[in-house]
């Protein structure tokens, strides 16, 4: 049914769609910069579920997200959560930054396209996001320039990590992570290496629920509506004039000067397409990284002494001219105890994960179908560029595994249907309105009171985990929007 707009007592200054990382970091900075009289409406499709409830209803949450999209013939899973705080409820809290060269893939390697902004443009926002999450990271350098040390000291290395570090001092580091190495005053306990981080049983990793919930509940400028599914954007004269949403079976319309989509790379393009905003081809180029596991049996070196699930990151296959023709890879060193069933050698096993970047393929995309609330997902396979990287792994392993006393190893070949749990691309950021959806401030090229936030704006994705970059982009977007010269904060 369609009912008259719900009584919102007038228009809002800002409507945010979604409450995950992209929206919450934007909101955090927006509220810091905006005046005390602004009014913000947040429309969240899911419900606010307490941590204990989530632990007890994990299957239900997974079913809910599966049911929210049409995957058609493709069986590839896309992992997200329909709940307040979105996918912060199921991430593994891995927070490396991108390397400076990740923003300049075309300039440096002649591949794909450059981002319209640089690492330097994001550096202060990376630091701010790390502070908000209380990220633990290496104290003895990092693969990217930093203006500040990590907020928390590094997690403890495993013994194999120490061997990697000795051999590759400039290419192997403690993993930066929002699984804290020290207890946090606000209440998050220190990570104790349970190894089931997607559902952290002690609520240690950073989530929107445990760390930024106050933005939604304690700030009188913010109205949060959960269970509110946004179905349509009304657009007239190149402005969003209304946001239609359905809640408890009733459709309503809310209005605001500014609308920011912070859903994810499935739902952001879906809403644009439903509004007829086809500029820049939203929906095309859906992608994520491709990973390969290598299980190494060690001779005489025990593993699993680290203090968190993933303890080390290797950059040995990341930068270099190989990136002109095949994908860069980031190596994760895992510390979750998966033992060998062999007397005296129980701990002499190491799991390494090699994560390859991918490039956008136009045939992998999100479209609108007959269901007004569900995007249709079309995914065939990753790029040849990614596959060439994967194909090279076995010959790269001799160099990478050189520091370890290797008894044997097994490469577990990738399956394009598995997932890294990232959803990227589909509303690309760029300077050219013909080939991108939003500009470098994440504002829609034509509809200037519409922002698109999150991993959907990435022009290329790097092998590194995307969340910290998503958060930094959102902080920057809010900062730029409310910079004193724009006068929009008053």
């Amino acid at each position, binding site marked *: 049914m369609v009912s008259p707009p719900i009584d919102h007592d007038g228009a809002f200054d800002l409507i945010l769609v979604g409450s995950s990382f992209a929206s919450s970091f934007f909101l955090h900075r927006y509220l810091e910069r905006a005046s005390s009289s602004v009014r913000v409406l947040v429309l969240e499709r899911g419900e606010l579920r307490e941590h204990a409830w989530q632990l007890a209803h994990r299957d239900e949450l997974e079913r809910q997200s599966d049911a929210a999209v049409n995957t058609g013939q493709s069986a590839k899973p896309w992992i997200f959560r329909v709940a307040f705080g979105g996918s912060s409820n199921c991430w593994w809290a891995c927070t490396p930054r991108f390397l400076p060269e990740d923003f300049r893939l075309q300039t440096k390697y002649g591949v794909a396209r450059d981002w319209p902004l640089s690492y330097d443009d994001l550096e202060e926002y990376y630091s701010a996001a790390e502070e908000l999450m209380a990220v633990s990271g290496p104290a003895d350098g990092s693969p990217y320039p930093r203006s500040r040390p990590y907020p928390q000291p590094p997690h*403890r290395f495993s013994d194999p990590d120490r061997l990697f570090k000795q051999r590759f001092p400039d290419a192997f580091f403690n993993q930066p992570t929002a699984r804290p190495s020290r207890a946090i005053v606000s209440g998050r306990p220190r990570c104790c290496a349970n*190894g089931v981080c997607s559902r952290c049983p*002690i609520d240690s990793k950073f989530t929107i629920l445990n760390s930024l919930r106050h933005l939604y509940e304690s700030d009188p400028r913010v109205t949060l509506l959960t269970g509110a599914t946004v179905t349509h954007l009304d657009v007239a004269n190149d402005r969003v004039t209304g946001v239609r949403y359905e809640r408890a079976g009733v459709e309503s319309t809310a209005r605001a000067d500014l609308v920011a989509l912070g859903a994810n790379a499935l739902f952001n393009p879906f809403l644009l397409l439903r509004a007829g905003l086809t500029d820049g081809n939203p929906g095309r180029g859906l992608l994520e990284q491709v990973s390969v596991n290598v299980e190494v049996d060690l001779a005489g070196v025990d593993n699993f002494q680290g*203090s968190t699930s993933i303890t080390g990151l290797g950059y040995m296959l990341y930068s270099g001219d190989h990136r002109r023709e095949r994908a860069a890879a980031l190596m994760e060193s895992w510390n979750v105890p998966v033992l060998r069933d062999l007397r005296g050698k129980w701990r002499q096993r190491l799991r390494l994960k090699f994560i390859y970047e991918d490039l956008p393929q136009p045939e992998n995309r999100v479209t609108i179908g007959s269901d007004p609330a569900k995007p249709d997902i079309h995914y065939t396979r990753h790029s040849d560029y990614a596959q060439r990287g994967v194909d090279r792994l076995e010959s790269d392993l001799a160099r990478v595994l050189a520091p370890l006393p290797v008894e044997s190893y097994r490469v577990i070949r990738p399956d394009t249907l598995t997932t890294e749990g990232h959803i990227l691309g589909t509303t690309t950021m760029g300077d050219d309105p013909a080939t991108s959806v939003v500009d470098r401030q994440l504002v829609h090229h034509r509809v200037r009171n519409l922002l698109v936030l999150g991993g959907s704006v990435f022009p290329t994705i790097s092998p590194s985990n995307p969340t910290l970059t998503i958060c930094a982009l959102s902080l920057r977007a809010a900062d730029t929007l409310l910079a004193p010269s724009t006068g929009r904060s008053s």
Partner: protein
Amino acid sequence: MITRRTFLQIAGWCAAPAAVGVLAGRRSIAWAVDRGTARLTALVRSPEDRLRSHFSYLTLDMAGVEQYFADHQRTFGPLPRHLPLSSDFCTRYLMSTDFFHHGADESRLVRYVGFYDPDLTTCNNPMARFDDAD
């Protein structure tokens, strides 16, 4: 008394992996022989007995072994009693004991301390070290 039909079934069960092994090489032959033996053993010995036998070089707390099987069944459902025990099953048992808490000392009695499930018994990873931390 074993019937002709049962004998042929057992022989077939054991021969199949061995045949695969012959085709795949000597290393696989060893694996296939082990696997065939495990299948044969599974027909005649209880799973509890086989777990104790698997860790014959350790002294296991007998009541704890029974409790492990009960806890495993409660979590994952009934165990197929006539299939070989998986490596995951055996190593999870070790993780559920005090074996690694005592530095994998094979001379000590291995006591069951509780089913290893990090979702339920949190902060119980016996190998993680935090001595660089607080």
